[in-house]
């Protein structure tokens, strides 16, 4: 019980299955947005704004923005699942209480939630990729690697989200990370313009602390089929390490909150 690192078991998948079942019960609500949203962004930014921007680093603006849309979707789908939705399940619906009355431990429950957050990222990214491929703005087949990558990126954002959920006194205080962390990340991670146009200190800050910057870098390498190994591998490593650490930190924090 007093292990320094919280150890979930494969019972975590039972929690994942519960969330999957719940998700597919309302699949229309869940599936329509990821198809419509990228089309809107693509039309407004890629083609609308792209008319004036033209090209960035020799790449048509629409192809520059497409991977950012995928990365943002990975972030939003997993982050909001493991903040607001998890908080509702934990605090209002008492779903966790019912789960830990079975052989599941709290570690299993939280690990299952994180795995589900990652899966949501994968589902939405895959749906979106189909749309973007139809518009011909992502390179194939290298873009297919975005699908497994979206699970890793989703796990990262889920773990970050779960840390906030664990320390948030109420559902309203989750607005802080949503507006003060997610929104700046949405804008300043090399999403709609390259990081290189920003002042050097901000570039360093973004690469050190903004997970989305790395997720965008990896995704863009894949959708443009132009991988520069140092950038690609260092971003992938950053994501892997931070994800591994925060996965366990978030479970630890949740355990501290719930096991009293």
């Amino acid at each position, binding site marked *: *019980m007093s292990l320094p690192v919280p*150890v*979930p*078991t*494969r*019972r*975590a998948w*039972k929690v994942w*299955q*519960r969330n999957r*079942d*719940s998700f597919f*019960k309302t699949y229309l609500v869940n599936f329509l947005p990821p198809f419509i949203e990228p089309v809107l962004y693509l039309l407004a930014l890629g083609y609308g704004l792209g008319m004036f921007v033209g090209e960035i680093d020799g790449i048509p603006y629409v192809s520059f923005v497409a991977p950012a849309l995928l990365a943002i979707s990975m972030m939003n789908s997993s982050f909001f699942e493991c903040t607001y939705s998890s908080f509702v399940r934990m605090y209002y*619906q*008492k*779903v966790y*209480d*019912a*789960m*830990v*009355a*079975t*052989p*599941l*431990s709290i570690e299993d429950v939280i*690990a299952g939630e994180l795995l589900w957050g990652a899966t949501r990222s994968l589902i939405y990214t895959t749906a979106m990729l189909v749309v973007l491929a139809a518009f011909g703005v992502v390179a194939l087949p290298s873009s297919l690697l975005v699908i497994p990558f979206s699970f890793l990126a989703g796990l990262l954002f889920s773990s970050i989200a779960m840390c906030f959920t664990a320390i948030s006194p109420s559902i309203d205080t989750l607005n802080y990370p949503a507006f003060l962390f997610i929104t700046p990340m949405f804008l300043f991670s090399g999403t709609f313009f390259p990081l290189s146009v920003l002042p050097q200190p901000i570039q360093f800050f973004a690469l050190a602390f903004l997970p989305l910057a790395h997720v965008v870098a990896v995704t863009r390498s894949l959708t443009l089929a132009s991988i520069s190994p140092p950038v690609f591998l260092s971003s992938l490593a950053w994501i892997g390490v931070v994800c591994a650490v925060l996965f366990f930190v978030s479970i630890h924090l949740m355990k501290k909150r719930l*096991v*009293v």
Partner: protein
Amino acid sequence: MQEIQADGGMETAESGRQTPIIEAQNLVKDYRSLRAVNTISFSVMPGELFGFLGPNGAGKTTTMRMIQCVSPPTAGDLSVFGMDVRRHPAEIKRWLGVVPQETNLDPDFSCRENLLVHARYFDIPPDEARARADRLLDFMQLLEKADVPIGDLSGGMKRRLILARALINDPRLLVLDEPTIGLDPQARHLMWEKLKALQSRGNTILLTTHYLEEAERLCDRLVIMDAGRILVEGRPSEIVRSYAGEEIVESESTPQVLACLREMGCRFEVYGDMVQAFSDRPREVARRILETCNPGRVFVRRGTLEDVFLRLTGRDLRE
């Protein structure tokens, strides 16, 4: 991720009727500076219906949570089915059915789906889960509500569904935290009937309740807790006999009546404008009050658990 292996702890529960299902020794639970459970010891034998009574904040729910392996004890020993709650939570919970105080059904699913999702947490195969779910819905008279979403159920139906859910893993021990709270008399009687039926099938049942009549009616043995301690333990009838007497004399508390009681050497308690007197010969006391002390009214009634409860825990309101 690795599966934690059970190390055969169930064997202790299988062998011999003497082994208690639950055994607590000097159990303590602290929440920061508050001592919620203060060095209690008790044991629950197989097949017993065992009750925990006490005012709010007495430590009943905390004790239940420790037995359910969701709240680790601060000190002392607690074993369920012969296994330590700290070391074998998953193996213990495998055989536990829990009815929590707060309704925590999964609102995303229908009645049947709630049972099926819960069955999956116990690794019950889908076909078996389906059969059990239908049997339990039938047992709790919810079969026609099988496909209704949770939000459309009445309070009583929700409590019944929670009991059905607690039974999905065929538990050896049922832990019920105020199972009949907020139920109408019909639903409460149905719940009692089901609990008795489960007990007669050999289930061990642990329950907390604020309804003393319920405890008196259902429990083989019970404890009354207050401020984290066990004040009394025993069979309801024995507890009533030794703490309140078989019968209690009640009268209006006029100065004259009180003087009479003092003269007779009777133990009594005044509350409001009434006085309760405790005696080995209640009828004689009542007759003497009636004949010589000029009471407004006087009557003898059967002693109840409520008398014991109020005597032991006082009449002050608890938060």
